[in-house]
């Protein structure tokens, strides 16, 4: 841990020799000795080398033959890229998609800069990447069913790449081991190369005009997307350097803002940017804003009063009354006793929760105001989002939901994770609780959900939930599916968190008790932070699982990446029955996401030293 921090601080200047900070990478064995050690160490190993070498060559040959065969129809996914990404999102509103991606780029750039994320890579390693990559391209060129012209082009490309690698290797000499580059620069470089290629190569995407495939230069992927992608890359790099340039108080403030923004971003992107609510300003001024102000300031006053030191039992009683009022509002909603805006019910519930936590903020004026400011900010967000989500959209789309393809996949994955996390933590606490009824309820829930396949739960929620709802209450299919995913994922998440809770030493509990903390303080301030820290790697694993499991919505009727690749494109008249190409493309998309998350989790695991302690 300490070593990592050291080295992050010391690589601040990027391309400087790190002779005193980071030990140079060990020299590798000369090729002959390396081969002797790794390929021919024993007769058995020699046999293995030849058997597996032949197998690997055969596998690459089959794959390359398959991919570059004339029978493959790669125009199918190329023409339908937009369908795969956003399904039927209106083309004239597409700027909204770019703005959403831009928001993510800004946040990514700022976070990597502010937290100084990423390792350093030695020039030796980079040079080896160039050389292996180039050799692989050459191998593909030799094995693929190319004509001689195309083969020559590929071989020249391979030679150039290998040449760059060799130039670094011999140009730097032994210094290649002690010169380090931030890995983030390598990422920027790779992204730059990909985006730069849009300006050079006209990627062959065809437009469909009058039912025929036409090579329409205006509709190629490259010219229509190169300007936005370039701007996005500039934003990413720019915000990275802004984030890195900041220090001290500004950086600390910005860190807090960025963290909050990450939490809010999915909601803002989906319900504000992409959905484009058509605000009714009369209603906003007459109802929404006054209501938000009333809850904000009324609630703020109550909370300020409740944080008065030495309030004793009265605080608890007031909080209890507020909770009862909030609960009663929901019961009344079920029976239809009196009308109330949903966000008012939500606000009452949140006020009760804040009031329950108020005792922890009793103290001087500053501490008390912290809670009040938190409440005001929270209310602003809740009321803004509720107003936006409740307003009709200006988008004209067919079907149930305006997202589709990759955007639906990501939407379900992110929303499921955000919603199931608190539920999972509660279930884990319930399962390890010393109160038997909570324990039994949580255990039964977790074990039941974990015992049945996800697809049956999705069927249950998409088909059967309308039966359970009271008359007059409706639920869109997407919402039903997200609820199903959330309840499913929460059970698994709870088990991961439980693992973390069990890893917290008994002494920590005892120390908290000795300090006189209450049960909720002990859980919130002592136990959970340590438990969650330990369970970060399994939680990332759960995130990967959820991301992959989103493909199951295609079975219950959602138009996600899998459904579009498997059913929608292969039903188009031009690409009738073309499946394999689309499936391979989307498996690559899924793979990129899952693989980068798993690499990140492995890095985290090393950082947290879970394996070593």
């Amino acid at each position: 841990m300490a070593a990592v921090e050291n080295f992050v601080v010391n690589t601040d200047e990027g391309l400087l020799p790190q002779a005193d900070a980071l030990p140079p990478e060990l020299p590798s064995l000369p090729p002959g000795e390396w081969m002797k050690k790794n390929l021919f160490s024993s007769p058995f190993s020699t046999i293995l080398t030849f058997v597996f070498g032949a197998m690997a060559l055969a596998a690459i040959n089959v794959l390359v033959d398959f991919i570059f065969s004339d029978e493959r129809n790669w125009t199918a996914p190329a023409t339908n890229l937009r369908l795969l990404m956003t399904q039927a999102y209106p083309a004239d509103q597409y700027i909204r998609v770019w703005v959403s991606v831009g928001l993510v780029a800004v946040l990514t750039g700022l976070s990597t800069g502010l937290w100084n994320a990423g390792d350093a890579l030695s020039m030796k390693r980079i040079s080896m990447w160039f050389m292996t990559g180039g050799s692989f391209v050459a191998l593909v060129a030799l094995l693929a069913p190319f004509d001689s012209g195309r083969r020559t082009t590929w071989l020249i490309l391979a030679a150039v790449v290998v040449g760059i690698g060799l130039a670094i290797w011999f140009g730097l000499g032994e210094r290649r081991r002690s010169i380090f580059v931030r890995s983030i620069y390598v990422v920027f470089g790779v992204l730059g190369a990909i985006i730069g290629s849009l300006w050079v190569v006209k990627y062959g995407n065809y437009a469909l005009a009058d039912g025929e495939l036409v090579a329409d230069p205006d509709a190629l992927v490259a010219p229509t997307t190169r300007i936005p992608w370039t701007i996005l890359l500039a934003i990413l790099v720019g915000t990275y350097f802004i984030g890195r340039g900041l220090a001290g108080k500004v950086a600390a403030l910005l860190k807090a803002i960025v963290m909050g923004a990450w939490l809010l971003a999915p909601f803002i992107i989906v319900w504000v940017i992409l959905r484009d609510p058509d605000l009714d300003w009369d209603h906003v001024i007459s109802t929404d804003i006054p209501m938000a102000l009333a809850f904000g300031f009324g609630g703020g006053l109550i909370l300020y009063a409740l944080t008065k030191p030495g309030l004793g039992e009265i605080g608890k009683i007031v909080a209890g009354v507020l909770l009862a009022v909030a609960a009663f509002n929901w019961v009344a909603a079920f029976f239809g006793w009196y009308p109330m805006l949903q966000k008012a019910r939500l606000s009452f519930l949140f006020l009760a929760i804040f009031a329950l936590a108020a005792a922890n903020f009793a103290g001087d004026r500053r501490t008390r105001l912290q809670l009040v400011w938190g409440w005001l900010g929270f209310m602003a967000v809740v009321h803004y989002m509720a107003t936006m989500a409740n307003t009709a959209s200006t988008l004209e789309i067919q079907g149930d939901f305006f997202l589709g393809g990759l955007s639906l996949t990501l939407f379900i994955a992110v929303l499921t994770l955000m919603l199931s996390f608190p539920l999972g933590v509660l279930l884990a606490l319930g399962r390890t609780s010393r109160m038997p009824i909570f324990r039994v309820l949580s255990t039964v829930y977790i074990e039941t959900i974990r015992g049945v396949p996800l697809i049956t739960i999705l069927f249950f929620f998409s088909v059967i939930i309308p039966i359970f709802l009271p008359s007059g209450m409706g639920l869109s299919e997407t919402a039903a599916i997200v609820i199903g995913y959330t309840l499913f994922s929460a059970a698994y998440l709870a088990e991961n968190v439980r693992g973390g809770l069990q890893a917290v030493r008994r002494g920590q509990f005892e120390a908290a008790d000795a300090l006189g903390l209450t049960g909720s303080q002990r859980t919130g301030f002592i136990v959970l932070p340590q438990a969650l820290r330990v369970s970060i790697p399994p939680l990332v694993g759960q995130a990967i699982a959820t991301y992959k499991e989103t493909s199951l919505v295609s079975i219950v009727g959602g138009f996600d990446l899998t459904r579009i690749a498997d059913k929608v494109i292969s039903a188009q008249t031009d690409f009738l029955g073309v499946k394999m190409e689309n499936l391979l493309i989307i498996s690559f998309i899924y793979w990129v996401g899952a693989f980068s998350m798993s690499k990140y989790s492995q890095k985290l695991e090393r950082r947290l030293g879970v394996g070593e302690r």
Partner: protein
Amino acid sequence: MAAPSLSTTQQQRPPLYRDAVVVKWALQLFILFLVLFAMWFLSKEAGDNLKAKGISTSFDFLSIDPGISLSEGIDTEPDTGGRALWVGMVNTLRLAIAGIFTATILGVAIGLARLSDNWIVRKFGNVYVETLRNIPLLVQILIWAALLGGLGRVALDNGPINGWLHISNKGVSIPRVFIADGFYQWAVVLLIGAVVGRWVFKQRTLKKDQTGEDTFPLGYAAAVVLVFGIIGWFIHPVFGFLNAPLQAISDAFGAIPEIAMQLALSAVAILFSARWIRNFFAERRTPAGTARLDDDDWFRVIFAAVGAAFACFFFLALWPGLSSWLINSFSDLFQVLADKFGDTPEGNARNGWPVDAKRPDIVQAGNFPNYGPAGLNMTLGFAAVFFSIVLYTGSFIAEIVRGGILAVAKGQTEAAQALGLRRSQMLRKVILPQAFRIVLPPLGNQYLNLTKNTSLAIAVGFSDLVQVGQTVGNQTGKPLSVFAIWMAFYLACSLTISVVVNFFNVRLKIVER
């Protein structure tokens, strides 16, 4: 959270709303009440809505003809809904068992490959794991289905084909080995052989322990079973006499009155509960002989007693049919066994071979030629799900195996080297036994996942339980009942797997001082 009400010294009791025990139990009962209320409310709403929509929650569809035909299974034209679901369950289990078996072998191989000294083998394992576990299983299933669907069509020549293996876009067909007339008599001979073999094994092990010489206990035992098998192959018809005693047992079960069975079940439930409570008290007893129980302990005791009472109520009043069902099942079971030793349905004595085999054949029943019943056929759907599930789960098992081997303390390897063990001996006798212990629980989890993942077969139309249930539920308009059956089946599967894993886990546990 000590219980103040049990403190021995006389203290001023706190007010009711500050008494930890009171607050704790009030909160729990309140939440329990909320949960029960919500469930009651939702089921009431569901009942009303179901009535309005004309959907019933009964299980009568189990005995009604669902009017569907299945793509494959032990019965493709089931005459009742229950039969259809049963076919689905058998298909799911076939897929799961075959998958678990193959995925384990593959996973262990890849896991060992990732730890190999050889660079190519190691890279091969890495690429395999990192590729396959990061692509959703459903997408892999669809890819396999697309790949297999592109294979050649079945040729038109009827009758047994000239070969052992046939691959086409209808699936894969290999020779089928099947149970013939004399199998059960032969199985009795094998069973006796196994008992004798076990005795020989113990004798040889004892001798090895006493004298230290290598006595090959396993080899001897296997040889004994083999000899019995060969002799039994020829003499098995003599065991036909077992028909009579089995028939008698079946009749005896059939004669048990229903009330006796109900009382016996209730007695078992009470006995179990009483034993548990007695042991619980014995555990909590202090050396002085007095039991000190806090409120949590009392909850468990009361829970056990209430559980027993509920079980009695269940057997006697709630579902009295269970007892007669159990009686009939036992009676039927022994009747079936007795029939296996009597004459064949055609009225022949059971003198034939125990097992027989046939090669694949191709028949044209409808418009298109397909594989006939002679060979062991793997349909396209089965093959797609099977291959993808094995490769996918194999990548996870490989990671578990690798992790388990790496988790064996380094000192163990060094100690084995210091003893002068060869590398293979070290793996077999020191590292793998310890790694197996670490690997077992997550491995059980993977088996469970594999079983649940077979439900994705619905995407390629393979008739597993979920696909059949979905069809039956839609046809008969009883999705809720089907969901209950799904849950019961999959929970039973996971319970079985965790019982098996726990059994080995307990047996393999290191006995600590």
